[in-house]
């Protein structure tokens, strides 16, 4: 059954194989060493050949990338090696990176980010999977409406989300504490204590992104061939067995995608804690990107901010590779 995709990929492989061959043809022509070749007027180079068309087609994207991505990325790297005032930067080598290693706030921010990552991402993805399984169930009534409802939070603006939750989580007048009070629970200082502020951020992130991931899982679930389940049922497999042996393995590529994307997203976390807690109390929810922003736009220390950006990029890359290694290779 899983032969079909690989067959298609085989076809792509063939197409790729005759790519270079096609390119070899004009090369030989231009060299002009083939006595058997038909004489062509020299100097008339055809710009659009079978081999060059793909490059012409991707040119706009490449140019756009070069101007708006590659250049800033390179400029930022250069900036991370400099220090000084806004208009008199001078080269400082690795000073910014050395400063970073000795900066307790950087480590605090990194620790906070890691903590949120470890707690929030599994929680959210687990929840998203449950929601997706529910939404995929044929017995659920008004399915499109539920799906829409689950997805809507991820359309809410990040800052709007933050503002909304700062009202909900307010200790004295917040909705959540009011609800808790109905059950006789004492008001929780959601944004005022280090522990609860972190929980608050986790809560907001989970609310915002669970639906997004659930929709991805749903798409994955719907791509699983029904025949697999039918065959399993014929063999007498129960629901748990079917979930573990069919659903999860089939979902693996999408699981991997969501894990990696969520990891990147969490490591770049900014808006929600920025609006909700401003990084407080006492830096309990300070994230690396918030610290980066502060250094750039509050302290005008662009060199140091760039060094932070590169440190973060490195961490994200390493984590990404690790996750793909761990989750992707296993067969």
């Amino acid at each position, binding site marked *: 059954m899983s032969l079909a995709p*690989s067959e298609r990929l085989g076809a792509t492989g063939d197409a790729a194989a005759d790519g270079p061959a096609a390119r070899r043809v004009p090369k030989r022509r231009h060299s002009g060493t083939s006595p058997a070749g038909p004489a062509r007027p020299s100097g008339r180079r055809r710009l659009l050949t079978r081999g060059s068309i793909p490059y012409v087609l991707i040119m706009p994207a490449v140019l756009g990338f070069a101007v708006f991505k590659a250049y800033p990325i390179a400029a930022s790297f250069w900036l991370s090696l400099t220090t000084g005032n*806004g208009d008199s930067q001078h080269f400082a080598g690795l000073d910014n990176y050395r400063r970073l290693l000795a900066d307790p706030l950087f480590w605090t921010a990194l620790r906070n980010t890691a903590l949120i990552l470890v707690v929030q991402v599994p929680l959210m993805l687990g929840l998203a999977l449950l929601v997706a399984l529910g939404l995929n169930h044929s017995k659920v009534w008004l399915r499109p409406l539920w799906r829409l409802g689950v997805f809507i939070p991820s359309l809410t603006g990040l800052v709007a989300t933050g503002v909304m939750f700062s009202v909900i989580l307010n200790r004295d007048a917040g909705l959540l504490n009011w609800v808790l009070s109905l059950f006789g629970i004492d008001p929780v200082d959601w944004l005022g204590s280090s522990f609860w502020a972190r929980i608050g951020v986790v809560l907001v992130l989970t609310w915002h992104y669970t639906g997004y991931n659930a929709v991805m899982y749903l798409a994955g679930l719907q791509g699983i061939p029904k025949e697999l389940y039918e065959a399993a049922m014929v063999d007498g497999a129960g629901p748990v067995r079917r979930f573990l042996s069919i659903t999860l393995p089939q979902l693996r*590529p999408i699981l991997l995608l969501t894990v990696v994307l969520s990891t990147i997203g969490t490591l*770049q976390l900014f808006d929600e804690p920025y609006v909700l807690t401003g990084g407080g109390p006492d830096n309990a929810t300070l994230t690396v990107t918030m610290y980066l922003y502060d250094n750039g736009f509050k*302290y*005008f220390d662009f060199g140091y901010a760039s060094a932070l*950006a590169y440190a973060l990029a490195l961490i994200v890359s390493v984590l*990404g590779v690790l996750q793909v290694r761990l989750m992707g290779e296993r067969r």
Partner: protein
Amino acid sequence: MSQHAHSLSRRRILQLATASAAGLGLTACGSGGSGGGAGGADGDSGPITVWSWTTAAEALRGVVPSFERDNPGIKVDVQDLGNPAIWDKITVGLASGGKGLADVLHIGVDYLPGYMEKFPQGLADLSRLGADRHKDAFADGLWPTVVGKDRAVHALPWEVNPLGLFYRHDYFEKAGVDPASITSWDDLIAAGPKIRAATGARLLGLDKPGSSQDVDFFQNLLQLQGAFYFDAEGRITLASKPAVEALTVIKRLNDAGLVSDIAGEGTWKRLVGQGKLATAPDPAWAVEYLATKFPAQSGRWRVMQPPAAVPGGGRSAIVNSTYLAVSATSKRRKAAWRFIEYALTKPAEINRMFASGGVFPALKKAYDDPKFSAPHPFYGGQQVLRSFVTSLGPGAAATNFTGDYSRALKFAADAQTQVLLKGADPAAVLKAAADQLAQQTGRKQAA
């Protein structure tokens, strides 16, 4: 799925990962180069734009008709960018060499020294246009802030916010506390429990978790002692004796149960509205703010000069101040300067702005206006503004904000939070804060 499909998606994911991570570099970086004065010109006519925020922008608009009448050929467009959005716009503009900035910029004291230090070529040299002749026209302590390292003037003071102590007169009476007997925070800490017992109100509100990084009160307690985060040479004084005294006052207030937590949107307003705060150490802008927001409490409030941070200490402090500057890349620097001079050095204009926007003027001549000795009904007929003018007398020392003020503010806010939430020792947390500030800025600490 086949092995091949896996390696494809893996590669794509990796590309995604690195691209979006490195994309951070893009948002983080500001171009280092600046053209300085290049591109600017001393044009004397034409349209000029002004960036300001909310009530101040509205007040400035009030000056435009008479200015345009007196200066034919200059058209003024005042834009309200909102606060804090205006800081990002000015910062990005300065960082990209002054591109896209308005001709006239309204800048707060918390940003001005930073801009002047980090972008020495960013704000026009107003001395060249004659700004120095107004040197003695403004409240004491403001002029050093506008003079750059190049000894040139880069802005004119507009607004100054002298500190006062607003207090509930009725509460003090009920508790049998004579306001005249309060000369230091020691006295208030002693009176606080009496007031609380009689009225249920705590003394004041502080943002305990510090999410807004509002440490004005701590800062004021420093300023009352003639101190700040930095000394005149720019050395760090965040762990100095006055700083420890200031944070100790806050700790004592908190330990005595006299502080309400005002973290969160609108909490302070709600507490004041419910009569749960007996005092509000706030600057002059609060005069009209309290009167407008809490009309039901009319007649119950009074103002006194701020109590000294330590017994026998100074009783005046400037909470903050704002300025108008001209962008160095402005094509019409002379026209922009003429607008600034017109708006900020004419008592009639500056008082008109005060009347419409509540921006307390820095111009000393403005205080001759009868409004500064008028009785205010909300304050039981007290001449409230007079008390703030008195605060601006000698003693309101210049405060050295320096280019690293925002970083210092962060460490001060963290230190205060540690004291308020975890009962930390003021001297210890301030020492740690000063050390971190030194590590981050390369500044020396004062002995």
